[in-house]
């Protein structure tokens, strides 16, 4: 297992989709459509997550002739990946919430979110 990948917006999007149901397996296109990513951005993210041991993948166990389509590559979060995703998503939410310095500057605006849940 490698080091945790450098957090990027694309990684965050993929983790969000996978974290919705950590035990479920998703194929690339499904995750891409849910995360709003196309192949060129999606596959590198899967590669990095897999290298870091956050995600495992396997080929779908179907007969292409019977299914009428080629087999798919299925991805699932590992236990380490679940912990990492939870932490990363929590950090991202926290970073997206305005801090005290913003509250001081913008808190007088009605509806502006302030740390602690109350709004101005």
């Amino acid at each position, binding site marked *: 297992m490698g080091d945790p990948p450098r957090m990027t917006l694309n990684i965050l999007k993929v983790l969000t989709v996978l974290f919705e149901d950590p035990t479920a397996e998703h*194929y*690339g*296109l499904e995750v*891409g459509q849910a995360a709003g990513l*196309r*192949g*060129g*951005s999606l*596959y*590198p993210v899967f*590669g*990095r997550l897999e290298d870091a041991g956050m995600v495992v993948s396997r080929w779908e166990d179907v007969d292409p002739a019977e299914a009428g*389509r*080629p*087999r*798919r*590559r299925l991805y699932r979060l590992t236990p380490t990946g679940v912990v990492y995703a939870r932490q990363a998503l929590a950090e991202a939410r926290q970073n997206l919430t305005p801090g005290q310095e913003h509250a001081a500057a913008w808190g007088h605006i009605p509806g502006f979110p302030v740390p602690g849940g109350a709004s101005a």
Partner: protein
Amino acid sequence: LSGWLIAILATLVTLLLGVVKADLEDAKVCRWLARHLIYRAAERLPRAERARWREEAISDTLALPPGRLPPLLWALDVYRRSASWAQTRGAPSRWELLVDRVRAAWEWVRSLPQARMRSREESKQHHPSRNEETAQEIMATAGIDAAPAVGMAAVGTTRSSGTATLGRPQQPWATPAGWRDGMMHLSDHDFIRWLDQQRQAFDDDIDRKVEEYRLTRDRVLAGG
């Protein structure tokens, strides 16, 4: 003139776009193009990973909603980002590839004189005059029997000039090595002398034949 040029160019572009549009309206062409782009993108990845990503990307394009453009756009995006993707997978960058190619080309250019010298040496080694085995092989392949050749050479030299070999053995053609020993050892001076003698012998032979012809002709005319 520029107006005509623009009109011609516009016509050509319109025709070209029409052809491209007609092709893109064919779903099979789009699928083929998408597959081709994915193959090209996968070629940039490290060898061990190509098959897996290629299969996955193609599988995903086939799972896209039916239509001409979605698979093509998906494949285009994969291709567009494949260079940076390949770098994250450990493949060399384009710049590194370019440097490697230039370096390889430079090494090749530098090695040319040595290769030429080596080739020349090999060629010399295999030349019949240097290599008896090669000479025998060539003669065998050509169906040349050494014995008649020796006989012919002996007759030729005897008839043309008794001193053709300058006192050397009378079988210079017995083997290539013999030929070499019989001829190649001569100095320039001796070789020119030998050539002179050969030429003189040839002229004498011609004169003799002409004289014989005249005599025969006169005899025939007198008899007739």
